[in-house]
């Protein structure tokens, strides 16, 4: 029997998810032994034509990381969907939109102007902007179109499973691959991680008081952090209570509050709204002005509460600006 064929692909991502695969270290060897990797742009020289040449469903599974924000990514994930029996959204960006998803606070025009004209390190006197098409003496050149709205993978193709995390923890990757190889998979649509919040595995849990009574939010650089005590109890905005466990509390263990990369637990529809609701419930004040003053200490609320999940939120994006007209034509 031939070995199952596997593909890896990246969309709008930082490359950290690819690193996570390498982080399997020697554990990658039995995996490579068991499967045939037939597509992995970051590591091996395959072309799009190689994928197109596959028959439908020939890939046992494709691991796709990154959110989807360009026409090229959209085409590639569609192609991989057709060729794959299983699609695994790999990492926060594919799962919930990830850090690139914060671009949904703006539209493409605003974003391009910021990046190509206004950033202090940019020197662009001729105001050259990215274009989808340009004519040069040799002919017409094209580039993929960037979208106004960053999307999660399951907003553009059907996704079978999700591996959460920024990047997904090595143990979860191993478990997921083993589950796929053995065929012992949970119901379709599952997130391949425990469905309990991080506090459960947090080494500081027992030091969390029953009443947080938050009077002030602090940032990690502002205080000397007690390495044993619950970070929320120290006034740090730790999102552990809202965030799915499975990472081994790696940030919290090194004095960094959880920022929520593993996303919400299964019953929560909107991560940021839930985080806000939970944190607001712990603020100790009945006075409107005092409450405002306490909450004003939270720098960049959207970037804090929706750091990894703005595109997956109920609102998907900021609607202050009108998105350009081609939004509707993307799919």
């Amino acid at each position, binding site marked *: 029997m031939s070995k199952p064929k596997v593909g890896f692909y990246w969309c709008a991502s930082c490359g950290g998810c690819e690193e996570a695969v390498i982080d399997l270290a020697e554990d990658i060897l039995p995996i490579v032994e068991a499967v045939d990797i037939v597509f992995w742009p970051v590591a091996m020289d395959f072309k799009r034509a190689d994928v197109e040449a596959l028959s439908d469903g020939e890939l046992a599974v494709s691991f796709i990381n990154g959110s989807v924000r360009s026409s090229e990514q959209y085409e590639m994930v569609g192609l991989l969907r057709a060729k794959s029996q299983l699609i695994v959204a790999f990492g926060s960006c594919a799962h919930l939109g990830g850090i690139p998803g914060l671009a949904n606070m703006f539209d493409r025009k605003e974003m391009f102007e910021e990046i190509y004209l206004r950033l202090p390190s940019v020197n662009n006197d001729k105001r050259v902007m990215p274009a989808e098409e340009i004519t040069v003496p040799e002919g017409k050149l094209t580039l993929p179109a960037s979208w106004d709205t960053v999307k999660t993978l399951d907003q553009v193709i059907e996704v079978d499973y999700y591996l959460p995390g920024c990047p997904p923890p090595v143990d979860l990757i191993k478990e997921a691959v083993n589950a796929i190889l053995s065929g012992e998979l949970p119901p379709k649509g599952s997130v391949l991680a425990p*469905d*309990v919040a*991080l*506090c459960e595995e947090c080494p500081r849990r027992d030091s969390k008081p029953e009443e947080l009574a938050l009077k002030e939010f602090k940032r990690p650089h502002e205080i000397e952090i007690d390495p044993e005590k619950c970070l929320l109890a120290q006034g740090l905005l730790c999102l552990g209570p809202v965030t799915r466990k499975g990472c081994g509390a790696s940030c919290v263990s090194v004095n960094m509050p959880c920022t929520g990369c593993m996303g*919400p637990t299964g*019953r929560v*529809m909107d991560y940021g709204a839930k985080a806000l609701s939970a944190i607001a419930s*712990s603020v100790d004040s009945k006075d409107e002005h005092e409450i405002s003053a306490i909450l004003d200490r939270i720098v960049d609320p959207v970037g804090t509460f929706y750091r990894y999940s703005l595109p997956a939120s109920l609102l998907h994006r900021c609607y202050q600006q009108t998105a350009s007209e081609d939004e509707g034509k993307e799919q």
Partner: protein
Amino acid sequence: MSQVETGSNGTPKVGVYVCHCGINISQKVEISETVEFAKKLPYVTVVREYKFMCSDPGQELIQQDIREGLVDRVVVASCSPLMHEHTFRGAMAAGGGNPFLFQMANIREHVSWVTVDKKAATKKAKALIAAAVERIALHQPLERVQVPVHPDVLVVGGGIAGIHAALTLADSGKKVYLVEREPTIGGHMAKLDKTFPTLDCSACILTPKMSAVGAHPNITLWTYSEVTKVDGYVGNFKVTVKRKPRYVDEEKCVGCLECIEACIFKEGKFRSEFDEGLSKRKPVYIPFPQATPLVAVIDPETCIEFKTGKCKKSCAEVCAPEAIDFEQTEKIKEIEVGAIVLATGFKTFDAARVSRYGYGKYPNVYTSLEVERLVNAAGPTGGEVLLDNGKKPKTVGIVHCVGSRDENTNPYCSRVCCMYSLKLAHLLQERTGAEIYDFYIDMRTPGKGYEEFYERVSQEKVHFIRGRVGEITDWAMEPEEVGKLVMRAEDTLMGAVRRVPVDMVVLAVGLEPQDDAEEVRRIFNIGCSHDGWFLERHPKLAPVSTFTDGVFLAGACQGPKDIPDSVAQAGAAASEAMAIIDRGYVELEPNTAFIIEDLCSGCKTCVAICPFSATSFDEEKKVVVVNGALCKGCGTCVAACPSGALQQNLFTDEQIFHEIKGVVSYV
């Protein structure tokens, strides 16, 4: 309450019943169009319309459809759940269904009454019906839980309301704990001279009731005591009461007053609380002769023994029953009761807050409560009303609405001031023969015999001037004003500003919530209206109930009230409490929160925020547990739970999201 079978394939069978509510709904909502629309919704097997769904034949429609197996879940599109949810749940049960497989779509208050356009109203009615249908498919059959009730009752506050409630309950055979903060019961009524409109002597009608409380075998009277903590829920409250030390053994003291006589202070030296500071008392005292219990109390703030430890303790020497006990300490009592009546009363408005009336500045400006003591035969002056120069006043001014009907203080009417001002006008005139000038905004005398009393007083030597007093001053502008208090007001009937010189002024102070009303509210888990009065469950239909089952309100703690109203309300509160006790059990609504233990991370976010202390952390299992008997279904913990591990019956996320889907998906 067995659940009817669902369809053979397990799918729900939803019945939709659209009510016309006479023409309340049908004049704005196209009923037939709505019915046709409902027929196409998922799982709907029966759609009917009826003129009054809440009527017996209307309810029978539902019952019959359930009995015939046509429906197992019911949506009634009619009025608000507050109005008739109970009715239709009852109809479900009567038909053999589970009362919680029921949902109301409110197309009256939310639609027909508030929508002008017929098309828009019909569209909105459809959306709400679709929402109810979407959610009802996810309802689970639920059961109400019965919990036995503790038969004793706690009454907090020993004013006339608390006294009446306690006696009513005790007379019916209930064991009552009556807790009063002051050394004696009696409250404000004990300080009053006469009562309007009958001019009964206040003490004469009150003190028999006070004695009855003291003597009643079913009443445990704890004066000089305060409730510090209430746990539990209707039928099963656990109450902690702090008994302050009075340094006199209540069991031994016979109220002979010898100790007071023997105190090394030969004269009273300290402000008498009972006489509103118009007389002085000693460190050991009995507030007034009819105090109940008639037991002395020693004030450690003023007693030499407590201050220096060097008193010769003559009080203890003369006490034959050896009741004086300087070693007495605070005692904490824990009791269990099934119901609570709160009758914590009011305080009078601090007249010094309206500085232009000169209270505290001019010696002859009094509050109405002070004048009650002055005109009282048992008061500090033996009923003589005298000015600071020892003469009787020839003219007295009364100012209504001090701290009432005033946007700078309290916007509300204190309800009793007009009547007691009329009473004081009468009494002052009777005692001193003075001419009375009564400045009012509106004379409010609704009540049995009240208007007649007004009529009677207006025949006397009382001048009524319609106008709010702008200022009271001793600045004389005319010779006849010299040495007098000048009341300046616009007489709105005459259309002119008047200056009325008087010898004495009575400020008719309004009623305000007690200073610690907010704290008391928290202890008993009830609400306050915006001005601080305890909030009744419904202003018309549940005026003595609160939003915490088993806690009832009596008297002025719920809002300004006169004596008859306080007594009536106390009787009502007592009988509401009796209804709970006599039934013997309480049924708990099943709309409670519950935890999915496997999903709980033990983050404890929900523990501290529960207003009913229903959530707690299980240290062994490291998860939160919900006490269903304590949970009132407010949903606070469910909203706060960061991982969706807490859910609420009848309000699960799925049900709510489906409801939203119903609103937005069909019309």
